[in-house]
């Protein structure tokens, strides 16, 4: 029953023309799950594009209209924000790479359709990150008040500066010099990503090479401690793969080869696995066979990710999903840090919390 209700949403996302066969009770479920999984605008756009929207029941219509208004606005806002960032960084004369959502939107990819966006992520060479920070500060972005420990932690171990918020607009930018922390187990060589980046036409920005965009999306997804946007990220991957493989016949072999070169085969392998198992997305057998099989590890991964990817909603939630989410949550830091560092970091966080709480209550 619980899997069935999520299936309703997932099938509809991939086959929107089936929408006319849904009952009103089905819609009640679908809209609730889609809202919770941050997919409602994506669903609305795909129903709109496939021309079935007007044939849907009246009570459903306003929710789709509202969702479309929201994603249209967010898309405009993210492109507008990117323009400000471009203006701030243009004097530095360095390639600024837009990562993830902002990159999809500015490059006009299908993955940006109906997507809800968060912060803007950019990637710049590590050697120039101080200049980038200074230029952004000059244009109104600031890390604000940040605990000295956290500040040092970011700068010593992370692959990004502390998040910078714009003083007037409140928008947040994350400035990265790599796609994984320096402290992670399989951090790729950032120079490889930078070299392959491609310039966007009529734009001051770059984006990662198509293969690298897929690999980054997968890497990000499977290093995250929580999957609140997990389904959205899977749909991003599906859209990227659809679009890139249609443009380039050799895309699939290039993709797996590139993952090997970057040392990021495992997130790609997991992405393939859950695109197939959760979305029913057809991964070419050739592509799968070029990645190492890990049947034992997959047993564990399936136990966590199959329930973990379902919307975190009372309609789908089982005790198993709750446990899976807790374990995934704890797995995030483990993947991003080496054990010694992790223990020191968590120990300090726990101690400081205790210390702060006692000083507040006395």
């Amino acid at each position, binding site marked *: 029953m619980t899997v069935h209700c999520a299936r309703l949403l997932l099938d509809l996302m991939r086959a929107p023309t089936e929408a006319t066969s849904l009952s009103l009770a089905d*819609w*009640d479920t679908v809209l609730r799950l889609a809202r919770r999984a941050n997919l409602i605008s994506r669903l609305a756009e795909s129903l709109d594009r496939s021309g079935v929207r007007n044939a849907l029941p009246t009570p459903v219509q306003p929710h789709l209209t*509202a*969702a479309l208004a929201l994603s249209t*606005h967010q898309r405009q806002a993210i492109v507008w924000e990117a323009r400000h960032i471009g203006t701030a960084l243009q004097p530095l004369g360095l390639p600024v790479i837009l990562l993830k959502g902002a990159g999809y939107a500015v490059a006009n990819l299908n993955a940006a359709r109906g997507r809800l966006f968060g912060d803007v992520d950019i990637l710049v060479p590590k050697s120039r990150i101080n200049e980038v920070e200074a230029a952004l500060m000059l244009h109104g972005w600031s890390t604000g008040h940040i605990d000295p420990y956290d500040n040092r932690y970011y700068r010593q171990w992370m692959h990004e500066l502390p998040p910078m918020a714009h003083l007037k607009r409140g928008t947040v930018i994350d400035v990265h010099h790599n796609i994984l922390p320096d402290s992670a187990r399989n951090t790729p060589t950032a120079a490889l990503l930078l070299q392959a980046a491609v310039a966007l036409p009529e734009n001051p920005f770059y984006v990662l090479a198509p293969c690298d965009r897929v690999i980054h999306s997968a890497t990000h997804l499977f290093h995250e401690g929580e999957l609140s946007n997990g389904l959205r990220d899977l749909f991003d991957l599906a859209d990227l793969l659809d679009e890139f493989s249609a443009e380039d016949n050799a895309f699939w072999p290039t993709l797996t080869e590139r993952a090997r070169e970057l040392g990021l085969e495992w997130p790609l392998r997991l992405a393939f696995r859950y695109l197939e198992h959760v979305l029913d997305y057809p991964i070419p057998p050739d592509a799968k066979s070029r990645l190492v099989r890990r049947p034992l590890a997959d047993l564990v991964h399936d136990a966590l990710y199959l329930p973990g990817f379902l919307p975190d909603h009372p309609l789908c939630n089982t005790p198993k999903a709750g446990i899976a989410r807790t374990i995934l949550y704890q797995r995030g830091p483990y993947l991003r840090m080496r054990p010694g560092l992790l223990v020191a970091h968590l120990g300090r966080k726990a101690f400081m919390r205790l210390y702060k709480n006692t000083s507040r209550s006395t």
Partner: protein
Amino acid sequence: MKQAGVVVGELGLQQLHEALQKGVFAVQTGLLRFRIRSSFEDVAQSIHALYAEHPFQLAPEFADFHVEVRAPWNLRRWLRPQAEFFIDGDPPFEPLPRDQAPALLEWGMNWTIAASCHQWFTLHAASLERGGHAVILPAPPGTGKSTLCAALAFRGGWRLLSDELTLLDPDTLYANALARAINLKNASIDIIRQFAPAAVWSPETYDTSKGRVAHLRPPIESVRRMRETASPRWIIFPKYQAGAAPLLTPRPKTATFMPLAENAFNYSTLGQTGFDAIARLLDQCDCYDFVYSQLDDALEVFDWIADNSPGLPAEYAA
């Protein structure tokens, strides 16, 4: 979708409580249907009082929003009971003390509409109707907007559309009714108790972030006619000022644009649609500032506004 003919008041309190516990109770408020789950008895009592005239359904096929008020699953609840609002399993804000649960449901429902209903242009404003025309009262908290709204709705001959959220269709600019409870705070509660003694109230809640609050059941007429829209004709910024004589001043439209945009929940979300909606709204409305201290004076002024289409100079005229 067929509208059930039965209203909440015909349901016994016990039946309502059970339906809420099972999560099958759904209430129709304006064009929206909220399905509500809660096992709190005071929530059931509050719904029973505030929505007595509203149509309801049990386990309908479809509801616009599914909300819940319950104790949060944390350790703190054993020390100090709390209530938390959920929409589809997600709590958009921090829990409140347990005794604020009924008010939390009302605020949570408002939040839900403001955060999700971008099919409308939503203003943080009260709106009322007379003769098919709507008056919009935008105002920041503390200006006496709800007090004035309650007075107009109960004794002024105006039909309440909404106290908190004015929902405008972005194409036609018609105002949609919500016909939900009016939220009054502190001294306003006592003023309206005297002014409209027959009104029905939810129990008062103390020590909220807004002070002492109570909700007032909307007049029956406003609920029965909640599917009737109204075309905005006046925009009036009220301001309560102790001891002031009533003073109605025309407002230039140019100076009204930004305050309206600032009072809208989704002005920027709607982008150009939001901009156009305000521009057209100003075209068709007379705009005023209104300072008052006595509700009787206010009713008289609003009568005058409704009865006269005053010949305002060009820069003010609709």
